[in-house]
């Protein structure tokens, strides 16, 4: 005999509460910013300014992609800013000091980021040090190493002019001369697509969400949680490495003093993009939108001649607002 069970009706959710809501909100905010700034200043919608915004988003966007993963696991990574610098300096060492081929130099730089990320993972998963502390430590270590290795001086890439083309050349411009969008922008979008596929289609992505949703249940289901955590932090370090290479190519130099503070911009982008700091949910698309919200805001305020100090204040307010909306949403559900 069969008991008929009514098909599930998902609990009623308001649009505000739904998962897509925060992303929609971020997207709406982006549109609003666009409209406001284009009305306020005729210079805003200029092609060159748009390219400027895209370029300004490239590095922070790539960093934010990586940190999205750790935040979905319920962790945090404060080291990506200085790991980025460390990777840039290593690229400089490989290409300028050791005169290795550019491609090897790039892979070496990304590898340096990957290595730092792996160390973070091991410290967190095996030594059971909270992610905040572990990556805070790595933040200092990477900063110090970058300064030591570079001997406090910028490393220039004048010996390998093709390196700069990695970020600042324009493949698109070669085909459509009126659309000279720098390669750095393409790299960011390419990285975003890859990051999104990894997050939604692969075993690594699945366990990223599972760990963030309920770590203990994931462990009891027989998943080697430690190993996957190490993998996630390694991935985050890898993105920091890619960010470092783009940064170095854009500036045509590895600047050892730069980098600290970038991790906070990246985390802000992730949070504005609707990824929950308590773990278990988040999207790459949201992160990309979040990164653009930040750079459009900075760019627009600068065009309106708002002093830089005030730009920073506004950015802070936006981050708090985004997290508050996230909390309101959670409280309702």
């Amino acid at each position, binding site marked *: 005999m069969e*008991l008929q069970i009514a098909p*599930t009706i998902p609990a009623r959710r308001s649009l505000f509460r739904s998962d897509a809501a925060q992303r929609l909100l971020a997207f709406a905010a982006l549109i609003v910013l666009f409209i406001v700034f284009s009305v306020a200043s005729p210079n805003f919608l200029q092609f060159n300014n748009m390219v400027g915004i895209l370029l300004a988003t490239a590095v922070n966007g790539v960093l934010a992609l990586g940190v999205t993963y750790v935040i979905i696991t319920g962790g945090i990574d404060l080291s990506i800013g200085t790991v980025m610098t460390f990777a840039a300096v290593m690229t400089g060492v490989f290409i300028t000091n050791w005169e290795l081929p550019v491609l090897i130099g790039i892979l070496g730089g990304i590898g340096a980021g990957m290595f730092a990320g792996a160390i973070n993972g091991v410290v967190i998963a095996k030594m059971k040090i909270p992610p905040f502390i572990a990556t805070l430590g790595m933040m200092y270590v990477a900063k110090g190493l970058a300064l030591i290795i570079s001997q406090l001086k910028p490393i220039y890439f004048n010996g390998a002019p093709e390196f700069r083309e990695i970020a600042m050349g324009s493949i698109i411009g070669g085909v459509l001369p009126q659309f000279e969008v720098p390669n750095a922008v393409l790299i960011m979008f390419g990285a975003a697509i890859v990051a999104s596929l990894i997050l939604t*289609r*692969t*075993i*690594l992505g699945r366990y990223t969400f599972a760990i963030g*949703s309920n770590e203990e*249940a*994931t462990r009891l289901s027989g998943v080697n949680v430690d190993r996957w955590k190490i993998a996630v932090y390694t991935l985050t370090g890898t993105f920091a490495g890619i960010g470092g290479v783009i940064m170095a190519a854009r500036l045509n130099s590895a600047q050892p003093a730069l980098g600290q503070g970038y991790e906070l911009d990246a985390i802000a982008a992730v949070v504005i993009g609707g990824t929950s700091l308590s773990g*278990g949910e988040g999207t790459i698309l949201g992160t990309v939108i979040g990164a653009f919200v930040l750079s459009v805001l900075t760019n627009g305020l600068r065009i309106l001649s708002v002093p830089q100090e005030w730009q920073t204040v506004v950015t802070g307010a936006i981050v708090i607002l985004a997290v508050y909306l996230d909390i309101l949403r959670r409280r309702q559900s």
Partner: protein
Amino acid sequence: MEGIDKSFPGVHALSDCRFDLYAGEVHALVGENGAGKSTLMKILAGIYAKDAGRILRSGREVEIPSPRAAQQLGISMIHQELNLMPHLTVAQNIFIGREPRRKIKFLLDENEINARTRDVLDRLHLQLDPRTKVADLTVARQQMVEIAKALSFNAEVLIMDEPTAALTDTEIDELFHIIGQLRQNGVGIVYISHRLEELKRISDRITVMRDGRYIDTVATADVQIERIISMMVGRTIYETSPEIPENGDQEVVLEVRSLNRGRALQDISFTLKRGEILGFAGLMGAGRTEVARAIFGADTVDSGEIYVKGKIAHIHSPGDAVKYSIGYLSEDRKRYGLTLSMDVETNIVLAAFKRYLGPLGVVNSSKTRVTADQYVDSLSIKTPSLQQKARNLSGGNQQKVVIAKWLTADTDILIFDEPTRGIDVGAKSEIYRLLNDLAHQGKAIIMISSELPEILRMSHRIIVMCEGRITGELDCAEATQEKIMTYATQRGGVIQTEPTTTGDTEFGTK
């Protein structure tokens, strides 16, 4: 399972326990809180390791070092707190850790995972979309997902720990229907429950445990619920007779009128008099702590009124409660009662710190020392000095420090939640004496306890709760362990001794 022994630091949880299960039967496991039911089953499910004893699976001796190993032996356990990942879908939860992959091993095969989940759900005749997020399901549905997960391992032994605790009546019918199906397919089910009236409906045999020991196994058809209750309670003789002080004062100091909070608290009303110890009995999850938290302002209620000394009290936070001179001593004193890393003196004056501040906001340490000294003396708190960190005291002395803290704050109404949990026998009787003294001095006391002898020994009146409702009130003269147990296992205030007619013969008892 034979001769199973298990100790935790300080507790001998199981001694010489046995349990057997046939294919296709529902074997209920009952006992009071702390009887060792869950511990025994967690050993079977590979979560705890046994200290001694043997486990035989289909006649062959096996070792079960991990949950994975148990699953491979066809043993799955559905925990009271469900082990699901709320952000993932039904299918993703069922196949976590063994996802079907594509040719490139790193890639997930989402179609395959959903198809396989649909198969498992079909076997249970569950109409559920594998792509639904688990967070969007009701608790009952989430439980079905856990059952489906167990089945996907081809489980032949399914352990269910209090599966109906969070379900409504209709949901229970659904669950029992599924249990019936599983039984027909030859799955053996261990059914841990506090709800004795359910056992008649669902189980074939019942095993009773008490104080970590095996008591007896009986066929459900041959036994009355009353008999099960007396086996659960036992005939333990307690060394001291009740020390109930006289209770002359009749002034009502606290009155609670129809407190409601979701399903956790339903229509809670009672009164508390000066100099009275009011016992709150019930099984785990009955809602006793929730009552305390509601009165203390730690949780917001949907409706209901609280009167303190005849006047309506607006209590929205623990701070408000303290103003109405209500003190709450949590069952988890290390987390909520003490600041462990601070010294005894600071802990004692913490709730009334303002009174010890000098004109410049500086703490008057000679005054705090006098107060602390006084209480250390009067409560005979055993501590080498006032500067001893609370962490280093024994459980009983920590409890006394918490009591001192609330006395310093001049509270008249004290709510004790499991006051003797984790305290050894000697210290227990000291706490009892202290409670009696406080009642003598005119304090009104609510004592929540899961230990029936303690309730019987201390209380003037006893309120029994079950599932968020008050199911009975007993005077100390008429109260017995059996009566309390009967009330504590009543669902919705009605005892069902007859199996519910469902029109489905497989629910009938054998």
